[in-house]
């Protein structure tokens, strides 16, 4: 091995990077963005889950709320990651859980059930175990703190959980819970990556120029790309769905067409996002560098691993702009909670708004390519 040759090759690579400020910038920006996100996600500096307290003594079906629960309420409020909020009736609390304005209700058990075995009831939506688990844990510790004695072995098991959004009330399995996120990420990544690379090739090979010199309109180009990729994205989504349900036994409570509709609208946005970003890349290497920058913030902030309600409010607003957030939310509503069109209308509207914005951007970047 000749040192001079190895050195010349290494120096050539360094020189290439120096002449490519975009790659250098991405080399710095991507790890910083990702580390900042991971650091924040792993910290305890998170927004608390909003929980109301119901008095189990007054009504077994959770009718009245918050009377004579001062000690328990205070103990619950002191649990990390929990904020006790006031609601007037339990029904109001359940309605708020369904609209996402409240994460849970914890029932303070009747006196005879407080000791020796703590039995309490927690009411949650049930579609997100990462919301359910901290509330159940906090309720258990608050119960022990309220009665003034530490938890006995097995006491955790005596917390019953009512999942108001899950049709059979069963805790969704990990795969049932993960399937919507998997489908979304596959659809997003596949469509975004392939469209951006395909369009970059269209540009670099000169075929885009030839197309633009023909009578084809910009809308026709964008639509052609969309329909070309839509079928593949739908097949991929069906494959993930089929594998999740048939092999991994994930459940789909809602309608399959609604699942496909969510994916279709997501794909419209992704195709146009890919086309738009491909214009900011000179080569395939630069397109690949866009992937972590575009995908990772959505994965971290889109509610795939951590509930969006626990994000710092400005990050929640940012998360609300991401298509992945709305696709995952809508698919969980359909697949886990069995929600219908009306239940996912807001997420669909947000996805549609993203898609339209991306179509407008796609038309705009193509406009610059033709006289």
């Amino acid at each position, binding site marked *: 091995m000749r040192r001079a040759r190895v050195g010349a090759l290494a120096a050539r690579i360094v020189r290439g990077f120096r002449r490519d400020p975009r790659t250098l910038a991405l080399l710095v920006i991507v790890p910083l963005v990702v580390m900042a996100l991971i650091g924040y996600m792993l910290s305890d500096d998170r927004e608390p889950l909003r929980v109301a307290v119901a008095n189990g003594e007054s009504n077994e079906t959770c009718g009245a709320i918050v009377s004579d629960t001062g000690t328990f309420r205070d103990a619950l409020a002191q649990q990390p990651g929990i904020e006790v909020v006031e609601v007037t009736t339990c029904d109001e609390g359940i309605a708020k859980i369904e609209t996402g304005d409240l994460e849970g209700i914890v029932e303070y058990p009747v006196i005879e059930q407080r000791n020796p075995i703590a039995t309490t009831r927690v009411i949650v939506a049930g579609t997100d175990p990462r919301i359910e688990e901290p509330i159940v844990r906090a309720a258990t510790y608050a119960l022990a703190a309220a009665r003034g004695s530490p938890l006995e072995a097995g006491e955790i098991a005596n917390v019953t959980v009512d999942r108001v959004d899950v049709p059979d009330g069963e805790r969704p399995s990990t795969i049932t819970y993960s399937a919507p996120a998997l489908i979304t990420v596959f659809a997003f990544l596949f469509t975004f990556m392939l469209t951006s690379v395909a369009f970059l090739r269209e540009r670099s*090979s*000169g*075929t885009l*120029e*030839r*197309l*633009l*010199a*023909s*009578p*084809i*309109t910009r809308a026709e180009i964008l639509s052609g790309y969309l329909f070309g990729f839509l079928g593949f994205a739908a097949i991929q989504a069906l494959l993930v769905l089929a594998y999740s349900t048939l092999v991994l036994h994930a459940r789909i409570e809602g309608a399959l067409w609604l699942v496909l509709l969510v994916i279709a609208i997501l794909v419209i946005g992704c195709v146009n996002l890919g086309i738009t970003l491909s214009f900011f890349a000179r080569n395939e290497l630069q397109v690949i560098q866009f992937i972590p920058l575009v995908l990772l913030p959505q994965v971290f902030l889109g509610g795939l691993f951590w509930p969006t309600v626990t994000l710092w409010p400005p990050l929640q607003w940012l998360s609300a702009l991401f298509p992945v957030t709305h696709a995952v939310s809508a698919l969980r509503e359909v697949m886990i909670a069995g929600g219908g069109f009306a239940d996912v209308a807001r997420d669909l509207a947000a996805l549609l708004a993203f898609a339209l914005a991306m179509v407008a951007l796609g038309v705009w970047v193509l406009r610059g*390519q*033709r*006289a």
Partner: protein
Amino acid sequence: MIATDLAIRSSELARSFGDVHALDGFDLEVRTGEILGLVGPNGAGKTTFVRVIAGLLAPDDGDVEVFGRRPGRATASDVGYMTQAAALYEDLSLRENLGFFGRVYGLPRARVIERIAELAALVHLEGDEDRPVRTLSGGQRQLANLSCAMVHEPTLLLLDEPTVGIDPVLRRSLWERFATLRDAGTTILVTTHVMEEATRCDRVAFVNAGEVLTVGTPDEVGAPGEGSIEDAFLAFRDGRAEPS
């Protein structure tokens, strides 16, 4: 197409890219049914002019017309554009490329099938129609590129350095085909910096630094150089010869 004697008319055409004046008062008229060669060194503005005519670039200043209309979507069906590099879908065959571009130009399916046969014969690629373009040689790709520019039977053919990478035998054959197309009424604007090719054009325009130095038949523009057309170009470029 609107009936007119001029296929292209440009007057005081200007187009800059940053500080670079690619076209700087570019005046040129191309008559219907002629082969006009734009001759000049790299960076003279030949490709920029062709891209303006193809409707891909808007001029900053000046007037330009293709068959009496502004270049753009309105003229797109009349114009066939052969780019410098082979602009083809490499994974598709010649037949599929021709089929695709034929459909883009709105040709009926039956006509597309006819054109594939006609063009494969014209560019000597009969028997290779179903090979993926990436398996064709450099010269064959250029021929395939040319055939895709002609799929919709344009009345104006823009050829940007069409013979780059093509061997002399095939080059001669291609020029014979250009002449056949011209005889059938097609107007051809061809860019080249190969001076030998310029002599095959009906008229030649010497282009340098974004402007047209002179236009005439090869004999007319060749006269001041007292020798080859290459000498003539250098004489015009260096100001030793006056425009006709």
